[in-house]
């Protein structure tokens, strides 16, 4: 459903992606991992068409990403930093995004789930980081698209919301959706993801399940497996 071939991207002198190939099949939860600056967000933004690659080809559901905006009907995206226009009310923002995409009633359920009712009439500029992230999650999950991309979804969430988010992700997976996650919280990744894609210096270093990663690195637990990759490659 997502296929990437020979992707190159440079920001000024900084080569972020250098010949990345990746295929993501339908259904399941994929975690994109890697150290800071390894190109996770750039990869995600390239799939969304927000970053324009220097070279390479990206196809989503068989459609070319280049010079196309239609395929984004099938993608829900949760950006890393939830920065919203600060003079809009939460209610208005949700209404506006619905107006721009299509109508849905799913938002009611999500608002209830994350207990956002008291904030609906508040301006986005006055919300706390965690509350903003909840609004962000509502916006990302309300359209029921087959591909969901979550960039650091756990940022700022309290423990209860985190549990709800995990349940939500599992429920979406049960519907047969494909979910792409980046996160630095290893316990979260270990719990939710089916497959790991490890980025290092703009290339795929490892792709496979968590148990495969443990065998490859000879480490008993996931966190140490990741750490050993980083130590071996930066020593």
């Amino acid at each position, binding site marked *: 459903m997502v296929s990437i071939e020979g992707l190159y991207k440079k920001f000024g002198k900084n080569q972020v992606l250098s010949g990345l190939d990746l295929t993501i099949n339908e259904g399941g939860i994929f975690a994109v991992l890697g150290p800071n600056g390894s190109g996770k967000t750039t990869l995600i*933004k390239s799939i969304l068409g927000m970053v324009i690659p220097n070279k390479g080809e990206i196809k989503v559901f068989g459609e070319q990403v280049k010079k196309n*905006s239609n395929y984004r009907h099938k993608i829900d995206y949760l950006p890393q930093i939830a920065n919203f226009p600060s003079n809009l009310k939460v209610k208005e923002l949700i209404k506006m995004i619905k107006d*721009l995409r299509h109508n849905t009633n799913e938002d009611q359920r999500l608002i209830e789930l994350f207990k956002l009712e008291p904030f609906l009439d508040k301006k986005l500029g006055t919300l706390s980081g965690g509350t903003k992230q909840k609004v962000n999650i509502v916006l990302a999950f309300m359209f029921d698209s087959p591909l969901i991309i979550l960039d650091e979804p756990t940022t700022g969430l309290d423990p209860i919301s985190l549990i709800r988010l995990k349940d939500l992700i599992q429920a979406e997976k049960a519907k047969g959706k494909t979910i792409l996650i980046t996160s630095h919280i290893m316990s979260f990744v270990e719990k939710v993801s089916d497959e790991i894609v490890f980025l290092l210096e703009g290339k795929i270093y490892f792709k496979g399940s968590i148990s495969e990663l443990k065998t490859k690195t000879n480490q008993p637990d996931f966190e140490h497996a990741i750490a050993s990759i980083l130590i071996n490659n930066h020593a």
Partner: protein
Amino acid sequence: MLKILKYSFYDLMRSRWSYVYFAFYLLLGVVLLFLNNDLSKAVITLMNVIIVLVPLIGTIFGVMYYYNSKEFTELLLAQPLKRSSIFLGQYLGVALSLSMSLILGLGIPFVFYGLFESSAIWDFSLLLITGTFLTLIFTALAFNIALSNENKIKGFGYAILLWLFLAIIYDGLFLMTLIMFEEYPLDKVSLIGTMLNPIDLSRTLILLKLDISALLGYTGAIFKQFFGTSFGLIVSFVMLTIWVVLPVLRIVFKSKRKDF
């Protein structure tokens, strides 16, 4: 595009600055009419204010809006929307709300004063039309600058420089060239020179319409010969339109190649 335009427009309609801008023109119109009592003189004074102020406000507002709505833009970019419609929608939202402040702010006091019975109605309409053109031109130029500069401070700096150049420095350079080459026939050069700067072009257009070209001496006569005819008027409006279209095309071109 229309949806983005709608949201940008509403967003600006809520902002305090649109009202300040509107109130300023309202006040200016009222004060001029009460102090002057002469409609065509009021139009001339207004012209002097509009020619300088409209480009400045258009530039500053354009740059400010672009940088302030960055987050909103990023939110929109992840939606199934074309880049060109996002940026053109925002541009038109800014340009139209500024034009509306101008037209309503000046129009209301003049209508109450009895504009429709006066002969100055054409001069006044020309003033508003060129004001709207200048808003469209300078907001588009501002968006261009903001799209090309990630750094806010730099963007603001370039925007102010652009305004300063077209509103003031260009005239100085133009005048110096005319003095330096005064032995040569310069009527064509000065005509072209005027055409190349939207602020000068607007000023000349209005001045000649107001029949005070005698003040401009010999060049004024040549200008009158050119701009006074319908051919000259059409050419001027075509030039102003080109001044809008080129920067707008660059907004589309640039936005398609930008990383967010």
